[in-house]
């Protein structure tokens, strides 16, 4: 019998495993670098979200200035058409508390849109031309560190887990101990995974607490992150078990990473885009503008007939005067919107089908799946973007009805009426 309780042995083993890990320069460096990158990514994400929130917060005073600038002038003529034409109304998509972790679509799609009661389609897709440079690699955020860099750190820490003992000449001696080397490798792997997960997730959890994020969503992301790292740890350990050298393992794992995290998702997205063709938003803008411009070349009555047929609630409006009247102008804008409605529906359906295909891809390619889960929980994916568009459309309908009630009833629009205009709200 030993002179120390056997129960103490397990604690000693964990202590020595930790000591061995921290005394290995590569491992210590990898863990420190992981922590630094994770902290940097969380700070960058929080910074970006704070700047988006600040931009949204600046809307109210800027809006008051804008309306103030046109209100005095409008008040003189009391013309509701001019009021509707010259006044912009802000909409915004405030970032969720977890948006800092996965900036997602917020990087490339507008989160502030100032709309007028004019044709919506030309306005809503105006920012639809993505910055290709940003869209390709994605922003440096927690999701990027987890999905793309996380596996590299797993490879750095795990590639020699088994082969390293063989190369150091200890494998046979360890295997000859009671319990063999499997327990040692398993324990060592668990420790590395735990430390890597902690260095990666701790800054994220701190950021989530700072942002006041929902606890369940935060823990779900932590669980997804650990599961993703564990997946890579399992692959790395498996590769490491096959008797090759550590260098050969590292090279093979780097190739697997390149294929599964970069090449395969890119090729899959190209395939999805080829299989599900979707027009660009800019094409809808062009089609809508063509329809709008066409209205100048056809009799005004034809436009009004079309408009009243679709919107009988305004059909009792007085006839158009011989001179220009804004209700005709706004009517042909709306007719223009409605002329491209089928294109808009097809565009949205196409985007949704692509999104579904990408989500299905996530079951095969973990990097895609994890990114999809993170952007969903952060409210920064395509679904969130389309949801924002829905809210803009609903608001625009209210805006149109508000101004139409003045234009189509020939009611004067005074300075005080600006205060009655519907206001956009996030919910």
């Amino acid at each position, binding site marked *: 019998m*030993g*002179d*120390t*309780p*056997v129960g*103490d*042995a*397990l604690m*000693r*083993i964990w202590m*020595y495993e930790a*000591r*061995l890990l921290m*005394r*290995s320069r590569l491992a210590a460096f990898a863990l420190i670098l992981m922590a630094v990158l994770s902290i940097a990514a969380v700070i960058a994400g929080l910074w970006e979200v704070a700047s988006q929130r600040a931009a949204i917060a600046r809307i109210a005073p800027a809006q008051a200035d804008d309306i103030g600038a046109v209100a005095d002038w409008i008040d003189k003529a009391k013309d509701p058409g001019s009021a509707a034409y010259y006044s912009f109304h802000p909409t915004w998509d405030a970032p969720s508390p977890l948006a800092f972790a996965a900036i997602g679509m917020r990087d490339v799609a507008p989160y502030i849109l100032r709309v007028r009661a004019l044709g919506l389609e030309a306005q809503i897709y105006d920012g639809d031309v993505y910055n290709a440079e940003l869209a390709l690699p994605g922003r440096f955020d927690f999701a990027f560190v987890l999905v793309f860099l996380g596996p590299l750190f797993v490879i750095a820490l795990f590639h020699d887990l088994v082969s390293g003992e063989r190369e*150091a*000449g*200890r494998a*046979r*001696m*360890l*295997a*000859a*101990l*009671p*319990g*063999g080397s499997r327990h*040692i490798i398993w324990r060592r792997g668990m420790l590395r995974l735990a430390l890597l997960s902690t260095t990666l997730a701790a800054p994220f959890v701190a950021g989530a607490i700072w942002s006041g994020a929902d606890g369940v969503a935060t823990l779900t992301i932590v669980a997804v992150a650990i599961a993703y790292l564990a997946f890579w740890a399992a692959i790395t350990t498996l590769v490491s078990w096959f008797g090759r050298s550590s260098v050969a393992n590292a090279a093979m794992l780097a190739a697997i990473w390149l294929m599964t995290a970069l090449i395969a998702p890119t090729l899959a997205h190209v395939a999805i885009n080829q299989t599900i063709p979707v027009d660009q938003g800019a094409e809808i803008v062009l089609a809508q503008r063509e329809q709008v411009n066409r209205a100048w070349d056809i009799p005004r009555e034809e436009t009004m007939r079309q408009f009243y047929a679709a919107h009988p609630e305004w059909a009792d409006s007085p006839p158009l005067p011989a001179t220009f009247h804004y209700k005709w102008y706004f009517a042909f804008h709306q007719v223009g919107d409605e002329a491209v409605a089928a294109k808009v529906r097809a565009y949205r359906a196409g985007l949704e089908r692509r999104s579904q295909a990408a989500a299905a891809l996530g079951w095969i390619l973990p990097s895609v799946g994890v990114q999809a889960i993170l952007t969903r929980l952060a409210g920064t994916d395509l679904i969130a973007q389309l949801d924002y568009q829905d809210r803009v459309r609903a608001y625009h309908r209210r805006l149109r009805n508000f101004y139409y009630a003045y234009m189509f009833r020939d009611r004067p629009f005074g300075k005080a009426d600006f205060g009655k205009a519907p206001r956009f709200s996030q919910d």
Partner: protein
Amino acid sequence: MPTNPPPSIVLEDVILAYGEHRVLDGLSLSVAPGSIYALLGGNGAGKSTTLSALLGFAKPESGTILVSGIDPAIAPDDARRQVAYLPENVALYEHLSAVENSDYLLALSGSPRSRDTIITALDAAGLQERAWDQRLGGFSKGMRQKVAIAVALLREVPVLLLDEPTSGLDPRATGDFNRLAIAVRDRGTAILMVTHDLLSAIDIADRIGFLDAGRIAEEVEAAGPDRFDIRALHARFAGPVAV
């Protein structure tokens, strides 16, 4: 009437093959508690495979292998609890000191000991005091071996398996090792040593077996004040040399 204790290591008519190649072909030997058996043989004679079989790494096709009465092919963990194994090149953890290595390996073996006990064992193994808390980075093979033997002593196992323990050691280190092996034997441990080093075997072994083509071709036992006939053994091991 006193009876001889049963041997700690038993190999009886063991046949073991890797694929088509039969490495052990009817190997039989036994090592009693408190004795040293030196297994000599050329390259490919089956020395390392014998150790693998005793550790449960390789399973024989037929025959009996017992370590303290346990068949390592059936209960490898139980068998390994009875065995301390020192590979040819004792590789320990460079980032840990001699005391830390011992402490870690003892904990892994399920036999934790206090620092004082470990230091006593390192001292008994001949490791100088200044090396106790040094990291193993600069240790010689002999020093590493002393650490590993200290661990084996502290595990208090009945069987010690040594794989080429003196290869690469200078004469002084070999002498140190031999004294240590004898001390371990005198505690009642059965030692099986596979080696090329005939002189070391002659110095410490109680019995020497010559392994050839997977079986014991000849076995000699130490007897009398000279223990072994060195010339005869050398001729047997190395073959006649024309001068």
